[in-house]
């Protein structure tokens, strides 16, 4: 299949959104576009499996390479492996759900949807590009819509949050840029091509300089401690769909970059710096979990728990075993679906109660049974109930991490495991205070969620269940890509 379709669909949708007149037309166009995205993503999955069955696994399926600035060694090089396919699927799910929950956005509807679709365009481009320059191009495309989404449609201290988010993310991408240029000038042939760079022997001293730049640069996107501070503010100020995209897609750009660019291209340095990564991720996991315990605002609860959950992604990458890195990818998918759903349901509740403070709510199960059930499901997923995606992902990370012997790794793994207990505490407390107990007077007359919100929740729950009940298809999908990276690292 031609990967350019993945770019064309969001691009056309975005242009069409700008062209049509009324708000309803905008929504219909955006919804149609995002349904198409999901269809294409599922089709890509099928085509990918057929291709693997026919040609075996390699690093770039459906590859295509066009000249773009040939005098600088930049080419429009596209191709996917299993990891990219899983990320594209995740993106398509989150985009569809995000478009659905925003059905009642009234302020500047057209611009809102335009930015949402533009963000998904950046994300797809990022996942399919095999040229660092193109990858960077799409990475930056995905940042600015977030700034505008938060600063125009956000709530609370939105200007502060929007600035903080945009500047920190752009700061991250500036580091990525420097690391990228370091790689560009090392080889005999000046090139940004990921596969050509991978084939070159990059000297260890260059790796030592470039790896921290690339890893920290991408790490900022995925809430690497201590660069996670944009996460709570950004998520809590963003409009519902904005938070969903931020947690569900944007943070995954970082994890994917850490894995596919930093770890893949710089195996020697990855091995060398692995222990530092583990320390940082263990801190993020524990700190995120304990910080969540102190939060009273539902959005802050989910934002801080995202820091903790994304810590598992980094931990999995840092442990450098096949199992753990597999787990990291699974955790990206799982966390993407789960957090998107969590933010969606918080949005539904806030829309009606006009508060996000846990202690001001109570008994919502009686007035809003659907929303409360979804909240319960997502809570269970977050604390790792078997049968849902969170369990599969975290379990894989733990088992994979345990394969690393040695006191240091064991302690880090155990510390990370302990966070599950803390997660259980804050999730159960938040869910019970919100949904259980007697109904508060002022909430007695509330109506349950509307059709579009239900649909959005169903889409994401379908994804969570598909991953939780049948994890093997996803594992099989990502495993060859992960093995390629780990083999490179172990080969040294």
């Amino acid at each position, binding site marked *: 299949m031609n990967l350019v379709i993945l770019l064309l669909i969001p691009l056309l949708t975005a242009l069409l959104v700008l062209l049509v007149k009324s708000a309803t037309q905008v929504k219909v166009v955006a919804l149609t576009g995002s349904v198409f995205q999901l269809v294409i993503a599922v089709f890509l999955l099928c085509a990918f499996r057929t291709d693997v069955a026919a040609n075996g696994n390699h690093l770039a399926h459906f590859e295509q390479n066009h000249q773009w*600035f040939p005098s600088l060694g930049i080419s429009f090089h596209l191709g996917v492996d299993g990891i990219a396919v899983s990320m594209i699927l995740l993106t398509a799910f989150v985009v569809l759900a995000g478009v659905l929950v925003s059905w009642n956005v009234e302020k500047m509807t057209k611009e809102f949807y335009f930015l949402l679709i533009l963000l998904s365009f950046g994300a797809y481009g990022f996942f399919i590009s095999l040229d660092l*320059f193109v990858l960077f191009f799409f990475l930056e*495309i995905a940042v*600015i819509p977030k700034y505008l989404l938060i600063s125009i449609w956000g709530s609370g201290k939105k200007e502060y949050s929007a600035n903080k988010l945009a500047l920190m993310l752009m700061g991250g991408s500036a580091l990525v840029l420097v690391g990228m240029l*370091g790689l560009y000038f090392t080889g005999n042939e000046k090139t940004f091509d990921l596969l050509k760079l991978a084939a070159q022997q990059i000297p260890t001293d260059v790796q030592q300089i470039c790896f921290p730049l690339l890893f920290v640069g991408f790490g900022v996107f995925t809430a690497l401690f201590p660069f996670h501070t944009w996460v709570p503010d950004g998520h809590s100020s963003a409009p519902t769909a904005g938070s969903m995209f931020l947690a569900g897609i944007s943070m995954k750009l970082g994890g994917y970059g850490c894995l596919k660019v930093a770890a893949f291209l710089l195996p020697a340095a990855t091995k060398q710096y692995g222990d530092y990564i583990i320390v940082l991720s263990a801190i993020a996991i524990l700190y995120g979990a304990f910080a969540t315990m102190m939060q009273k605002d539902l959005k802050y609860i989910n934002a801080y728990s995202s820091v903790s959950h994304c810590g598992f992604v980094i931990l999995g990458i840092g442990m450098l075993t096949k199992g753990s890195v597999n787990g990291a990818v699974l955790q990206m998918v799982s966390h993407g679906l789960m957090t998107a759903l969590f933010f969606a349901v918080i949005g539904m509740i806030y829309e009606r109660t006009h508060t996000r403070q846990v202690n001001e709510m109570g008994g919502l199960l009686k007035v809003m049974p659907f929303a409360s059930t979804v909240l319960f499901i997502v809570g269970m997923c977050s604390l790792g109930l078997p049968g849902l995606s969170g369990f599969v992902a975290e379990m894989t990370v733990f088992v994979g991490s345990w394969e690393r012997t040695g006191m240091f790794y064991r302690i880090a793994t155990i510390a990370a495991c302990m966070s599950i207990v803390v997660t259980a505490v804050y999730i159960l407390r938040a869910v019970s205070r919100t949904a259980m107990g007697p109904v508060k007077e002022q909430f007695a007359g509330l109506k349950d969620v509307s059709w579009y919100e239900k649909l959005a929740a169903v889409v994401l729950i379908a994804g969570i269940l598909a991953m939780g009940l049948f994890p093997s298809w996803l594992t099989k999908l990502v495993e060859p890509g992960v093995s390629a990276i780990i083999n490179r690292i172990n080969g040294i």
Partner: protein
Amino acid sequence: MLNDFFILMKMELLVTVIIFLLLLVKLGKGISNDVLLPIIQVGLLLNFLAGFFLNKEGILFDGMYYTTPLAVVQKSILNLGVYLISLLFADWFRRCENLAEFFVLMLSALLGMFFMISSGNLLIFYLALELSTIPIAAVVNFDLRMKKSSEASMKMILSSAFSSGILLFGISLIYGITGSIQFAELSVIVTQSPLQILAFIFFFTAFAFKLSIVPFHLWTADVYEGSPVAVTAFLSVISKGAVAFIFLTVLYRVFHSLNYTWYHLLVALSVITMITGNLFAIRQDNFKRFLAFSSIAQVGFILVGVSADSVAGQTSVVYFILVYLFSNLGAFGVISAICANTGKEKISELKGLYKNNPFLTWVLALSLFSLAGIPPTAGFFGKLFLITAGASRADYWFIIVAALNMIISLYYYLIVIKTIFSKADDQSVQKIQLLPSVKLGLMICAAAVILTGLMSWVYDYIAALK
């Protein structure tokens, strides 16, 4: 020979023809601005088109005049800029009392720049530099009733006279040491003796004045603020571009043997210039002052590319100036339209611009995104190529500082973007009726900002030129 003369000097000759045409028009009476302006526009457009034909390398007047296909492209870029200025600021031009004089002066400056780019000799270089500066000082003062405009003109003439003095001192030292004023000879003779380095630094300082490199930038903000918008746009884009082009020639060709000296000089000045420009831009509320400081920061960026000392460096600088021209003129065009219709010139007064003027808002947003270097606008490519060229020296700290400065600049551009898109109130800008030529100019800028980067042949075309 005569044939060569016409072909090699076609850009200069065509501009001269327009200037004389305007002088003739001034002799007769009764041609209104509405007729005069289109004539000028057509003339400039023809000159721009002429830049695509019959380009070759050649020397005239015993090496005083030297042109290459790259020089013609550089002249075409400047010419295109003046053409866009004549479109974008039509509001102001139509009300201008002495339009013919205004363009005679502006085009003389442009002619000076053309000669400067093609100069092959220190004297003609100095002459051309003066020709490109003095008329500008006169047009800065064109808002005759505004006190600020006269003040700006005074500052401009004093500071440029000062920098010319330093330049002449540098030139005389160079001549005293080497006994030559020809660029071609100098490039062989110049050595690293302390006196020559001193002479070079005097020479360099004059460029720093013209490019408003920190610490020689102090005239910039006041002059930009006091001048009519059209002149501010000319100063910030065309003047800067012309000096940057000749700067490349001087550093890469004439003083190449001193490249160790000027590389370190450039790195230091680039870092201070970027940081100062950015930090001062954050605090500005007047849009012209804001763009003045942001243009100082952009010059810091251009120096990153210049420091590369390679073909990639040269190409990236020329490419960046092209991109910068579209982005900056787009921004100035929008501000001029708003200012001409409502008198608003402050960033805080632009709140809610989007509600009544979506087209202007999008053009301004695209221009600012391009200045900030956000994809898919051309500014992203321009800045990235400058950094890529500069990074070839593997000076990681320099590149990190440059990349982080992009973040600081993003902060203040985003403030403006947020302001224009934010909620409108009673004070927000009314619906503005745009003149057709302004609309055309803005459309050209917006389309170019989106397409120049994505269409990679633009870069490759410049890269392929000698």
